[in-house]
């Protein structure tokens, strides 16, 4: 290999302008590769975060038990009449053991028991229908990033406190410190015949999550108060979970459903379009990466074809005194690999610098970049390896032609 390396290097060095230009071309290809990787990966992480960040990844709820009433059939048999919607709110009574099972499962980050119910929030003459979410104070921030999204006040879910979305607050015309009255629309328990329960609460915090449905409908209160409000003696309405890998949600949901006999749904069920969108984005990204590699290969191949035809006489002379075809072949493949290696490493470095610069340049006042490029996800090693492979493969045909040159013809022409 000493001979091959010596000749390959010398050819590259003596045609330094062409070699430099070619290496620069390879670098640009690798910059495109790493930039697209950093951008698309960053974008998909941001999209996923935006969507998965503020919702439960897996939701466990009781199977809807449908009330049945006997009816006489004309043939004398008993039939069931099904009357959905007339039942009591289903409750997970065994939620403590469900929590235990869920938290023991590998990949589950948090499991939050919640009481959900419909209610009306009123201040003075005005009232607005709300979805009341009762959650333990320490878990208030576990599913939606409420604390981070506060625009007024604090996320204080002590007894008698309520934290509401900003649109809701605006609609009611309330601010932090104002008193509101919260009435349950219907109680879960049929025995609380005393009519809808009602509580007077103080608004402690106002948040803007950026999800309209939450910002204009949701009111957070403490779990115990919610139970009392909706007349649930024991149990919770749902258990919401966050998992480590959001793309494993479906698998975990299936296992949780089997283990707990509850109905498990995932964030992916509610965001089917995201998955398709991300897949389309990945395809696009791969296509661009593929084209950048193809460009590298075409550049290397055409440059080497030129080099081979310029070195025909050299090749003829070398072959005349007994340098084998294999050595000629290796010499030219090596040229491709050297160009590829050098260009790829430089390109990866440039790509790294470029994505960082872009990130810095796009930083907004809040510290969040306007372009979701993530320099850490530039796939630099992969770019280098693939560019190297592309260069090597591209070099094979010109190198093979070089090894087939007839020495006599080359010397005489």
């Amino acid at each position, binding site marked *: *290999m*000493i*001979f091959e390396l010596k000749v390959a290097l*010398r*050819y590259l060095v*003596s045609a330094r302008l062409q070699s430099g230009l070619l290496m620069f071309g390879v670098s640009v290809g690798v910059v495109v590769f790493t930039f697209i990787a950093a951008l698309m990966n960053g974008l998909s992480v941001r999209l996923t975060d935006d969507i998965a960040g503020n919702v439960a990844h897996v939701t466990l709820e009781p199977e809807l038990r449908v009330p049945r009433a006997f009816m006489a059939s004309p043939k004398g048999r008993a039939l069931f009449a099904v009357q959905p919607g007339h039942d009591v709110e289903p409750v997970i009574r065994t939620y403590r053991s469900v929590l235990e099972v869920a938290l023991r499962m590998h990949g589950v980050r948090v499991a939050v028991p919640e009481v959900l119910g419909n209610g009306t929030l009123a201040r003075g003459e005005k009232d607005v229908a709300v979805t009341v979410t009762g959650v333990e104070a320490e878990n208030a921030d576990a599913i939606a990033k409420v604390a981070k999204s506060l625009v007024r006040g604090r996320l204080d879910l002590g007894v008698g406190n309520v934290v509401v979305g900003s649109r809701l607050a605006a609609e009611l015309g309330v601010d932090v410190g104002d008193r509101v009255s919260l009435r349950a629309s219907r109680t879960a328990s049929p025995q609380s015949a005393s009519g809808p329960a009602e509580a007077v609460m103080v608004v402690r915090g106002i948040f803007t999550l950026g999800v309209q449905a939450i910002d204009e409908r949701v009111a957070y209160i403490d779990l115990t108060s919610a139970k009392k409000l909706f007349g649930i003696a024991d149990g919770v309405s749902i258990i919401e979970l966050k998992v480590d890998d959001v793309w494993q949600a479906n698998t975990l949901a299936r296992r949780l459903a089997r283990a707990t006999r509850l109905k498990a749904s995932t964030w992916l069920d509610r965001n089917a379009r995201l998955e398709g969108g991300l897949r389309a984005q990945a395809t696009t990204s791969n296509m661009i990466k593929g084209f950048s590699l193809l460009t590298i290969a075409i550049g290397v191949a055409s440059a080497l074809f030129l080099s081979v035809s310029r070195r025909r*006489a*050299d090749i*003829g*002379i*070398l*072959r*005349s*005194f*007994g*340098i*084998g*075809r294999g*050595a000629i072949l290796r010499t030219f493949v090596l040229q491709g690999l050297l160009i590829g290696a050098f260009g790829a490493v430089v390109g990866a470095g440039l790509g790294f610098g470029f994505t960082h610069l872009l990130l810095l340049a796009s930083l907004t006042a809040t510290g969040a970049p306007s372009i979701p490029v993530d320099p850490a996800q530039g796939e630099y090693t992969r770019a280098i390896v693939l560019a190297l492979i592309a260069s090597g493969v591209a070099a094979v045909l010109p190198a093979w032609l070089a090894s087939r040159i007839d*020495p*006599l013809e080359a*010397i*005489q022409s």
Partner: protein
Amino acid sequence: MTAQDTQVLVATDIIKTFGEGDNATQVLRGVSATIARGEFVALVGPSGSGKSTFLSIVGTLLKPSGGALRIAGEDVLGLHERALSEVRNRHIGFVFQFHHLLEDFTAIENVLMPVFGAHTRVTGGFIERAHDLLERVGLADRVSFRASKLSGGQKQRVAVARALVMKPELVLADEPTGNLDRKSSDEVLRLLRELSRDEGTAFFISTHDPSIAQRCDRILTMVDGRLTG
């Protein structure tokens, strides 16, 4: 030593036909020649008579259409490409009229190139020999010059050194002085004779220059694909 062993080249009834059918032209029509160890032989003849074709066949760069060919006692017809490469590397040196050197390499690098045909690395012995040969051809002060920086005569002298580095039994030179002026070509021929004598290498030189042919041990004359006289 048998007579066979002293012959570095034995060519018998070499025929070469280019093309096929109606276009076929027979360029060599049964050429037989022998060259002994250390002999200095000229090949002359009119343009187009087949001198270069014959030298190419002897150098195993071209396959004859018929006949037999032994180089250093070895029958080389029917050998495969790899084996032919080896024969050329071990037994034959070339000096061409054009395309003398690899221009991107220095004089000594050019001289050492053939070593890589047989070895993976160049060892001290070869480097010493290359220096010695360059000195012999009067280029001791041009050892590390780029080939592209040398004059035509200097290039041809480097090519002579390169042809000899592997100590071949036979050096084939196709009009080695064809591109040189009187003074340089006399100088190159003087060198070839000297090296032939010192190294015991046989030379087979095609030339149009009668004064060069006169200074050879023997003159073979090619006319229309046949050797005469």
